[in-house]
């Protein structure tokens, strides 16, 4: 028996160990609880099956238009909200965003989903030359032990040892940060597109729809782009021929208020160290 077979056999034996029979008391307890536990109502609107008349269509469209305008009006962005992310601008970052100090003050104007970063713990990455906060009850899952390289590391995810990764206590949401040197003259948009085309996550389909998914973002006074991919949200910055990436590996709707709001809170705590990243032999990317 070779090593692979021995390993497989040992793993199977390990997995098959023990009984899976549910104790009767457990089932009884569940069925007792069910008697007094109401089911949640399904509030989704069922699909229409009957055809609508033209007049009904017109009236419905008019009502919808009024509703959309009313909602848009009530949701107008106000200054001082988390990361200023409430005013999405299409595609490329505005240079004006970097002209002032980052106005990212998550707790400046409380909203139902405001994120207070005052209690966050600061983490410093000497390897990549930045400090960043994370919620005090999150833990450092991975400390980068090597430099992130392009293209090799573009295909891996949060468990890469080239990332600084924080994870919440329930192990359901993770935030990773990293940085990589790029060739002089590389633009942020070009780099993001090259990265997107190669990465496992975001998905390839996200790359074609990226303009509609991008809003301006700011980190330590530098303008960048925040992209809401299907499965995760990532922010990109180009500073002194280095790309800095902050990623949250969950889809936008995963938490109330949106993952991008949490990402904005992360960005508000991020600062580049004066000395820059520690010297390394990493080659510029993309080549």
């Amino acid at each position, binding site marked *: 028996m070779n*090593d692979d077979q*021995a*390993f497989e056999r*040992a*793993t*199977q*034996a*390990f*997995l098959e*160990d*023990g009984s*899976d*029979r*549910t*104790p009767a008391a*457990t*089932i009884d*307890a*569940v*069925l007792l*609880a*069910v*008697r007094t*536990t*109401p*089911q*949640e*109502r*399904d509030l*989704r609107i069922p699909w229409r099956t009957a055809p609508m008349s033209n007049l009904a269509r017109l009236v419905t469209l008019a009502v919808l238009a009024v509703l959309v305008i009313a909602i848009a009006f009530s949701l107008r962005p106000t200054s001082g909200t988390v990361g200023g992310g409430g005013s999405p601008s299409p595609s490329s970052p505005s240079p004006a965003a970097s002209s002032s100090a980052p106005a990212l003050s998550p707790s400046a104007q409380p909203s139902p989903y405001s994120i207070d970063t005052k209690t966050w713990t600061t983490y410093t990455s000497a390897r990549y030359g930045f400090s960043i906060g994370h919620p005090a009850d999150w*833990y450092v*899952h991975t400390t980068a032990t090597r430099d992130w390289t392009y293209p090799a590391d573009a*295909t*891996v*995810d*949060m*468990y890469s040892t080239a990332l600084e990764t924080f*994870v919440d*206590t*329930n*192990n*359901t949401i993770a935030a990773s940060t990293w940085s990589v040197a790029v060739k002089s003259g590389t633009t942020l948009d070009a780099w993001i597109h090259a990265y997107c085309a190669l990465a*496992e*996550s975001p*998905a390839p389909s996200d790359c074609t729809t990226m303009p509609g998914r991008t809003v301006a973002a700011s980190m330590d006074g530098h303008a960048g782009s925040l992209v809401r991919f299907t*499965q*995760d949200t990532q922010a990109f910055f180009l500073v002194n021929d280095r790309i800095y990436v902050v990623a949250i*590996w969950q*889809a936008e709707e995963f938490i109330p208020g949106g993952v991008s709001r949490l990402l904005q809170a992360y960005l508000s705590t991020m600062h580049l160290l004066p000395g820059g990243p520690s010297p390394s032999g990493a080659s510029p990317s993309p080549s």
Partner: protein
Amino acid sequence: MNRDLVERARSGDQAAFADLVHQVSDTLLGIARRILRDPGLAEDVLQNALVTIWRKLPHLREPDRFEAWAYRILVNACYAAAPHNRRWASTVRILPLDRQNDADEYQSLADRDELEQAFRRLPLDQRAVFVLHHHAGFPLVEVAEVLGIPGGTARSRLHYATRALRAAFEASRARDNLREGRLE
């Protein structure tokens, strides 16, 4: 899974739900027990997950997807219940002494203990992928769907879990070879 049973349970039929519970509880318990490595905690998690399944059943759009949907609720319940960074308490095993195959028996137990320790060191999300793939038999694409994660993430978690377990297994074998070498 009987679609009619799921639909009746979804519309509030408690007897139908009781039948569903009897059909799926052993499988769900097996998954929870393997992810958590704690039979008592796994039973608690199963109980909570089944009540959550009952509560949320009206939201299930596709009755044919009941099992995958239930697995996701169970795994989330495992994540929520697992004590973070709990240290592994080693268990004492009594080794049989007058058996012909003492060496094999010892090796097998040693391998299993090494795997147990290595598995408990894995993050829960890696454990979940490993168990759903190797124990429940889901292809990785379906594991990703059940857990609501990208396929690449599922693949990566499985890779890291397997790598850690293999390293533990090889360490166990290396120690055994060393032991045998000394005895000869």
